[in-house]
């Protein structure tokens, strides 16, 4: 992604110490481009919610600066907060309000004049319209989460934070959520979501960030990550030790182990032709016999787990 002159979100040298001295964010630098979907992954307590809370104005930063659409989140808090929508991690809703009223309340709180037609549109898109007059406490957990999304969308934000939108949500609702996120992206909304599900990041994100112990340890476009992910290795255990790879097989970029007993071939599963058949044919021609073979693949999960372990 090109480094745009004017990113929608720019976080510079951000630190957060909670009272008591615990440092939850360590020198975070991050830019988010307009219209992208960024997935933040990280173990429990990594600092994902803290990061989101600082941008939204719920937690005070200790140092550093954050700007949204070019406006500072503290000096110009009205501008930044009115274009941000937040769906919190916890299911915190009023109990006795009706769905329609609580969503209308949010719109007003964010400084927008009443617009029953917009509220209707949001509620319909979240399949909540037939529940509009129900008290929130009579809804199921999944519906409550959708109410929280409706509240966050009530004031037509251009930046949306979803803090673990699919935690405790069934498969079909998860698919619905992904669909909603894609539609919002189409409307030009920038979306930052946190998740513990790697397949969720694979499914909808443009970029993936990994955060651990308050530090961003990786941030990369998903496609590049998937390319790494797409790489597979074929490992051949040879019957007889080999001194060197024959010249006739130089094109395969084979790696020979030190004892000469193992050949490793790296190939890309994304390609139409992996070259495995040709390799095996050529091995036969070169009279190299093997006892066993197996393939390995590094998944995003592996990349993620390794990264987190390395940085801990």
């Amino acid at each position, binding site marked *: 992604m090109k480094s745009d002159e004017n990113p929608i979100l720019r976080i510079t040298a951000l630190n957060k110490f909670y009272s008591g001295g615990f440092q939850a964010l360590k020198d975070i630098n991050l830019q988010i481009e307009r219209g992208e979907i960024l997935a933040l992954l990280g173990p429990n307590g990594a600092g994902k919610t803290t990061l989101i809370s600082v941008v939204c104005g719920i937690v*005070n930063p200790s140092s550093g600066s954050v700007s949204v659409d070019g406006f500072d989140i503290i000096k110009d808090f009205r501008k930044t907060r*009115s274009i941000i929508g*937040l769906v919190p991690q916890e299911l915190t809703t009023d109990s006795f309000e009706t769905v329609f009223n609580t969503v*209308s*309340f949010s719109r*007003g709180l*964010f*400084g*927008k004049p009443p617009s029953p037609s917009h509220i209707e549109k949001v509620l319909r898109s979240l399949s909540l319209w037939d529940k509009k007059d129900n008290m929130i406490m009579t809804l199921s957990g999944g519906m409550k989460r959708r109410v929280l999304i409706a509240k966050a969308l009530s004031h037509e934000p251009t930046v949306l934070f979803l803090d673990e939108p699919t935690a405790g949500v069934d498969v079909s609702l998860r698919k619905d959520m992904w669909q909603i996120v894609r539609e919002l992206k189409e409307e030009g909304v920038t979306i930052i979501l946190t998740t513990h599900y790697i397949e969720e990041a694979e499914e909808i994100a443009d970029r993936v960030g990994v955060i651990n112990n308050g530090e961003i340890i990786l941030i990369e476009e998903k496609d590049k990550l998937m390319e790494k992910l797409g790489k597979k290795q074929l490992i051949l255990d040879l019957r007889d030790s080999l001194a060197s790879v024959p010249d006739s097989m130089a094109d395969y970029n084979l790696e020979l182990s030190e004892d000469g007993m193992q050949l490793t071939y790296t190939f890309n599963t994304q390609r139409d032709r992996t070259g495995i058949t040709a390799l095996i044919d050529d091995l036969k021609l070169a009279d190299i016999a093997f006892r066993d073979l197996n393939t390995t693949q590094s998944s995003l999960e592996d990349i993620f787990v390794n990264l987190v372990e390395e940085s801990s």
Partner: protein
Amino acid sequence: MNIYGIMAIYKFEMARTRRTLVQSIVAPVITTSLYFIVFGAAIGSRIDQVDGISYGAFIVPGLIMLNLLTNSISNASFGIYFPKFVGTVYEMLSAPVSTLEVILGYVGAAASKAVILGIIILITAGFFIDLQIAHPVMMMVFILLTALSFSLFGFILGIWADNFEKLSVVPTLLVTPLVFLGGSFYSTDMLPEPWQTVSHFNPVLYLVSGLRWSFYEISEVSVMLSLASILIFMFSCLAVVYYLFKTGYKLRS
């Protein structure tokens, strides 16, 4: 100024009262009626006039004060405490509303409710006694200022409290005794010394005295002193509230 934001908070708070109509309106009316039956009719008939007016009439300003104070405090403190308790306060913290706007919404609603209640009590009293109000405008000024100041006070209490006990301990252990000892239901010159002097350290005395003056032109302290004390209390609360929000005290970590 985020007018829609203020309106949203105000309407939300007023709606909360509508849902608890029995608790917020019917209950005080019944309690007030009981006061009139017990103190006004039953006991009052055996009490001589106080400062030249019947006992039933004498206690009206005190009853209004009692309700204004306890209601302003409980409305405002609960209004801000509850979102903190259930976690919905995240939305207010992430919304483009300033300190002033939040206060206008919560305190405005709490004070409105208290004033409405004060008027309902006044009307209830009218069924039991022959009401005369010498200075209706001053009466409204006292009612409004009291409702506003104690709503501010309740708001502070709600922000400070981190459990339900703290929320209820101040009203029951501080405010209610002060109201009862502040000459709401008697004239302090009926008390022996040193209690008469001690009473003058009770801030509620000044409120009741001021309100009673606007009804019957009788007072224990000068009206100006009453007015000054309520204003001082209000500005002290404003200063505290301003400080709380500037520092994000107990709301933003």
